[in-house]
């Protein structure tokens, strides 16, 4: 039970608790809006932003957040003006950001270890300041959720209907994108820029197999997300595995089990 007194483990556990809670809620919105590419596009924007930060000597988490939020402002209006689905623009953004990141790595001499640590994350090295940022982002997500719950429900149900009813659909949609951007970028050191996409996508997909109302979808998605983070950390501690990869593998196992369990229940009925 030495891990209970291990300073690094406790810090990592608290950080991942916030990561799990934030991703559970954000992921549910991404799932309901059917924009799974948003996670991957944001993750690559955060990765490119962090590489950019390292190359010019500023805090990589801050530069990741800036580029991520800028991307979220680009996705919505660009898709609307171009008459495309936001998913198309997210795909383009994803490719562009990845290319930008590789270009910066090649030209600025950033070590491959540093670049990889941003991809896979290392929650054991998060600072107390990072935890405060994660707590603040999680608090903002929950506060936004509680204040705008009625409008969020209308928008995730049907964006067009919400707009026609007079609900400020654009404000809600862009706010959700910005919150997603902040979640992804502030988690670049915990789960990692690329793997955070999995944590946004997989838990709500698993939760949707069992949720019979919107509240249970939020709750189950958060439980699966937090459990994946906690179990991933323990697996990493006891078996000496990378934390980010362990978290995503456990989330994927939960999804596979939920899929099989649902099939079994449906078969019995």
């Amino acid at each position, binding site marked *: 039970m030495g891990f209970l007194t291990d300073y690094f483990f406790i810090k990592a556990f608290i950080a991942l608790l916030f990561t799990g809670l934030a991703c559970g809620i954000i992921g549910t919105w991404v799932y309901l809006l059917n924009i799974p590419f948003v996670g991957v596009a944001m993750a690559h924007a955060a990765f490119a932003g962090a590489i950019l930060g390292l190359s010019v000597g500023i805090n990589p988490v801050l530069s990741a957040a800036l580029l991520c939020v800028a991307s979220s402002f680009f996705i919505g209006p660009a898709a609307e003006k171009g008459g495309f689905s936001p998913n198309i623009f997210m795909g383009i953004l994803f490719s562009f950001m990845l290319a930008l990141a590789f270009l910066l790595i090649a030209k600025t001499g950033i070590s491959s270890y540093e670049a990889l640590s941003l991809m896979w994350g290392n929650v054991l090295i998060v600072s107390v300041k990072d935890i405060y940022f994660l707590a603040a982002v999680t608090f903002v997500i929950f506060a936004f959720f509680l204040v705008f719950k009625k409008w969020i429900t209308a928008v995730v*149900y049907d964006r067009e*209907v919400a707009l*026609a009813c007079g609900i400020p659909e654009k404000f809600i949609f862009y706010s959700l994108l910005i919150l997603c951007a902040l979640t992804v970028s502030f988690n670049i050191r915990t789960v990692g820029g690329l793997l955070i996409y999995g944590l946004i996508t997989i838990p709500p997909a698993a939760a949707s197999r069992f949720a019979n109302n919107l509240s249970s979808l939020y709750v189950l998605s958060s439980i699966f997300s937090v459990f994946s983070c906690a179990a991933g950390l323990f697996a990493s501690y006891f078996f000496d595995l990378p934390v980010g990869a362990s978290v995503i593998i456990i989330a994927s196992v939960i999804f596979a089990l939920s899929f099989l369990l649902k099939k079994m229940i449906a078969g019995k009925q």
Partner: protein
Amino acid sequence: MFAAEIKNLSVVLSGKTILKNINLKIEDGSFTVITGANGTGKSTLIKTLCGLQKYSGAVKILGRDLKKTDRSVIGYVPQNNVSERTCPLSVFEAVSIGRHAKNGLLKKFSEKDGKIVRNALKISGIENIKDSLVGKISGGQSQKISIARVIVQRPRIIFLDEPQAGLDMESKKDFLNLTERLYKKFKFTCVMVTHDLDDIPSFCKKILKLENSEISET
């Protein structure tokens, strides 16, 4: 006063002109059907009048500029898209969205709101499925949800965008009967677009045709 008044309305989407210099007046309390072949811009016209599309020209709803109009006076029934529903909302919750929009953000959902929603479910004939998930119901029932959601919003003018598209014959008939009952009960202005002449209700007095960006009475 006209329920809707359109002057020189033009809509351009992705560089393509969909509607050009449309002029139209919809009388208050009337039931108007706009027909036309696929691709003539009927849905674009309806969406524009609901404030869902950018446009040039002048659009007045109940005498006020569309951009300054309280949106809750406009009811919108979209095309049937039940297969796209991933949100695990019950029928009751989906219909309640119309009340949330009417009430605004701060006002809580009251007992009176619940009564209004239950009444709309009853009138629309979907009271028995109020606890079912919206993603697990038929296309006909889905359209009745849209109608019930619009009723609880208490609009003055309702726009229906090919509401019977994709429905079987029985569901179409059922939907038309419901529309007629509600139109006569609530006396709101109705504008419906359809490309299928068989979908036009018998009680409709005004049928317009949209062709080559021109509207003519048939």
